[in-house]
């Protein structure tokens, strides 16, 4: 993969020569990837290709065998605890199933990270919880609900609000639109794009949703054969002759395969 550096953009996540494996099985073999500040990066790959593994390695949940991961220029494996915590406050993670704390109400879920890191008055915490909920398109009526009482789409939104609780600079989204209906998924994409614009976020989005890739992603990185085989804009992907990319982006389910529907692109 040719590194598109030197275009003046700041690299916030820098993955170099990353090797991750479980036992005999090597999932990521010398993966290189740069994520620039302020972009929405869509990260795709076949099921089981290791997309989530890469995301989990970047956020420090999985150990690596070789290579480096730098977030804001800090190598998390070598950073001190204080440096790690500083970085962790600057990112938010939306897990695939939401990972809301099931024994806490929505209000407490949202306030948990804020309460932990900042000493704020209860009044401000309550107001912020409402503000964050409204930013993700919900309202104060869900505050006292428990995660088990929320629908799938609401869970994702609340989880996104929690990921945004500390106003992070990077958000990691693990399949944010999976399990949502096309309308809900479209709204969620729109939401991410809006938040990205208003908050100036960098978004690292693992996804399978071709519509998301078309509508909101600035750049797409593709994981196949244990490596990032391509990274670039949608046009680059569509122009590529790599068999996997052809199958993925120009297959039956892609928009390109359906004449007349490319106009959907915004």
């Amino acid at each position, binding site marked *: 993969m040719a590194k598109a550096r030197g275009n003046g953009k700041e690299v916030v996540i820098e993955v170099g020569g990353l090797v991750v494996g479980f036992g005999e099985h090597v999932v990521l073999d010398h993966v290189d990837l740069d994520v620039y500040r302020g972009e929405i990066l869509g990260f795709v790959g076949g099921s089981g290709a290791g997309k989530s593994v890469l995301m989990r390695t970047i956020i420090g949940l999985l150990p690596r065998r070789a290579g480096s991961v730098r977030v804001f220029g800090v190598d998390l494996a070598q950073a001190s605890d204080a440096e790690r915590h500083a970085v962790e406050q600057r990112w938010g993670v939306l897990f695939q199933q939401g990972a809301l704390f*099931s*024994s806490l109400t929505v209000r407490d879920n949202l306030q948990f990270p804020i309460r932990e890191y*900042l000493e704020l008055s209860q009044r401000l915490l309550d107001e912020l919880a409402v*503000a964050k909920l*409204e930013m993700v398109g919900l309202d*104060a*009526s869900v*505050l006292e609900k428990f995660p088990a009482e929320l629908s799938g789409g609401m869970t994702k939104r609340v989880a996104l609000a929690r990921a945004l609780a500390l106003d992070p600079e990077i958000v990691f989204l693990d399949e944010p639109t999976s399990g949502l209906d096309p309308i809900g998924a479209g709204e969620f994409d729109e939401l991410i794009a809006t938040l990205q614009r*208003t*908050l100036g976020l960098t978004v690292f989005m693992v996804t399978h949703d071709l519509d998301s890739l078309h509508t909101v992603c600035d750049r797409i990185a593709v994981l196949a054969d244990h490596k990032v085989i391509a990274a670039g804009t949608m046009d680059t992907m569509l122009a590529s002759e790599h068999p996997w990319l052809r199958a993925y982006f120009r297959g039956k389910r892609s928009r390109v395969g359906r004449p007349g529907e490319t106009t959907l692109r915004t």
Partner: protein
Amino acid sequence: MSEILLEGTAEGGRLRLAAAGPWIAKNARRLEAQIDSATRPREAINEVRIDMAGVDRLDTFGAWLLERLVRAFSARGCATKVEGLKADYRSLVEEVHHVKLEEAPMRRHNRLANALASLGHNITSVGGSFGAFVNLLGALSVATLRIVVQPRRFRFTSMVHQLDNVGWRGVPIMLLITFLVGCIIAQQGIFHFSKFGADLYVVDMVGILVLRELGVLIVCIMVAGRSGSAYTAELGSMKMREEIDALQTMGFDPIEVLILPRILALIIGVPILAFLGSMAALYGGGLVCWLYGGIEPSIFLQRLKESISIDHFEVGMIKAPFMALVIGVVACVEGMAVKGSAESLGLQTTASVVESIFLVIVLDGLFAIFFASIGM
């Protein structure tokens, strides 16, 4: 560091607030204090200008606090104007401007009311779990009848698997614990009886106590802790992940598939464990009598034969399956009562163990009265 994030200068009816520095999460606490002091009612003000030009960073926290400032003045009828906001931050400020706080339901803080409410909830939940207990007992009877009519529906493999878990794998720990309990009561008996020179009566005590009460009671308490909790946790997590709903939609009766084999496994397993446990306790008692009390094993056995009758053994053994049923039903009722959260799973598992141990002891008391009145 106490840099000034907001500074006000009033001239006549006009207030000019100059904001400066980073309005971000880290500063939110100080910023809130400064905003609160700026909005404190003072002399009549009818025009407020907030100059945001000095703010070099702004996040949601800062944007919300700015919004709060604006709202506080607007609510007092002041003409409020925000100036000099950097273009990058406009959309964020616009976003929080739409936040509607009025709808936010505030938490109830009346402690007495909460305490009374929780007392009420607890009382109704006791009634509720009694209802659920009876309900499951009825459903079990129906499922059993159905299986008697159509024996091929019975999940034999599942029951054997459960029997392996609750019975066979539990044998070592049950033997160890009942053995130790047998040792302890024998030692205590010898220690105190020897004061009256009645050492030999220890054998009577150990024999009757172990066979009638302790063997089965200790085994049941162990089973409630070991297997009852496992049943609750298994069924509860299946409930949480909608596995039970899945079974139902495929046309299976969860009671027949999941609960009946588990409870039958207990009804078969517990008497066997109780028997083995009683033997281990007698063995332990005999060992201590010999090593500590100097009662030869042959004398111990002789005395044991004289002091106990088959009645004592029967009393103990008859109780075992009933206690197993109670443990199993309570565990399954609690498992099925699990709701979506991890906390609920923990609560129900605790409730399952506490309730089943309590009911086992109550049942033991009822049996004691019953056997005494029929002269066994």
